């Protein structure tokens, strides 16, 4: 935990600096305006467009320094924690669950939401939940079917279908 605390504070500090830099970005079409021209008070108008995000990001950066100071002085609870940030179990869990979620996102592009829901439920229930194949198949099939009727048919929210789109054309003929 001790190491993770300072590494995170460092990364968040970098992010705050990026936010500050980005807040001062001049408009794309106007080369006459310099970077950071918009972060101050404009005479007679009040704050410029970059004022609010720039100074708040600056406070974020100061908070990161504050966290680092607490870390060096060992005054915050996490800066003295000897516990590992992620133990073996947590790493395995993250790879399986987080990986599953990224797989879900990629599958949406290929087989659409309904195909991806089926695959994700099956994966999670069989691999992580150790449920029986039959039970998993039933739930993994039922969920996309229910979702289709809820979203595409009842709510008229068309979820992406990827390469499976042609399969849905007859369903539209029947239900829409």
């Amino acid at each position, binding site marked *: 935990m001790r190491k993770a605390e300072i590494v995170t504070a460092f990364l968040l500090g970098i992010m705050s600096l990026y936010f500050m830099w980005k807040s001062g970005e001049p408009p794309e*079409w106007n*080369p006459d305006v310099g970077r950071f021209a918009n972060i101050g008070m404009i005479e007679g108008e009040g704050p410029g467009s970059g004022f609010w995000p720039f100074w708040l990001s600056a406070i974020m950066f100061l908070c990161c320094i504050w966290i680092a100071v607490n870390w060096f002085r060992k005054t915050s609870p996490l800066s003295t924690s000897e516990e590992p940030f992620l133990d073996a179990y947590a790493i395995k869990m993250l790879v399986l669950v987080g990986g599953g979620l990224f797989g879900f996102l990629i599958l949406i592009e290929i087989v659409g939401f309904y195909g991806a829901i089926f695959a994700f439920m099956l994966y999670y229930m069989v691999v992580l939940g150790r449920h029986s194949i039959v039970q998993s198949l039933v739930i993994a099939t039922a969920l996309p079917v229910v979702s289709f009727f809820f979203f*595409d048919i*009842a709510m*008229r929210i*068309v979820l992406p279908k990827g390469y499976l789109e042609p399969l849905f*054309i007859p369903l*539209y003929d029947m239900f*829409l």
Partner: protein
Amino acid sequence: MTLSKRNFMGLVGAAAFALSTVPATVMAFEPTKPIDFVIMAGKGGGADKMARLMQSIVEQENLTNRPLVPTNKSGGSGAEALVHMKGASDPDHTIMVTLNSFFTTPLRQPGLGVDIMEFAPVGRMAEDTFLLWVHKDEGITSFEQYLAAAKERGSDWVMGGTGKNSEDNIITDFLNNNYGLSMKYIPYKGGGEVAKQVAGKQITSSVNNPSEALGFFESGDMVPLVAFTDERLPMFPDVPTLKEAGGDFSYFMQRAVVGAPGMSDDAAAYYTDLFTKVYNSAAWQKYKSDKSLMGDFMAGGDLKSYWDTQRTRHEGILKASGAIN
């Protein structure tokens, strides 16, 4: 959610409407899946209200065999919607309701790489009009009185409008530049909010569309002074146009439906046919006269040349106000 709209409509539809129109001619193109109906503005604005009315008319009169599915994409003053259209995976099922940001946004954000001439000209449904409004307590009843008062108060005269570099801003700039005024312009999120600021006397004037200010007009809180149109509006027969008051300026908001770049000609013809029917429906005509909209239906080459003129005009206006180089 056991409710099926189609079934319900089937039940009551036959009894309620005799005018249900089924296309008699066989079309070369028929949509095979729900149609992505993009709205280039947020919920509740003029464009959104109109888009939802069009959708309602299509549903009510059963004009398509697949539903229109509206999605609001207001990001970046319409940039998000334009990029979505440009990258549409199935242009034959992607159409969009546009306003004037269709002309200005590609000019102001050339990085988007959007050429509006690539869009399919499905149909122009109307042109919205602009009027100059003040609160009745100002005691101003004519454009001349307004000019005198605004000149006297300088930057204490506050004009509100929808967003920076928007239609409202263009009109305000015109008034400032041509009549020696120095009104202050404050951008708000939507036309309804602007009208409320005038009615609550938080700001001095606005250039709302009639539909946004109508409630306060009827109650007498807001007074129209001049119309930025070519002829007087039937709803406001006593309000002169700016041309009558000596200015050479009129300005309209396009309310048109466009198809995604790459839409096939058959599909474009199908949608033009569809929106011609919407345009001719009683509901649309009633809305048009109730909200004081102008402009006839326009499609195909006519609409494209209209876009071309409008684009050139907006380029000039934006350059003059320093919003583009």
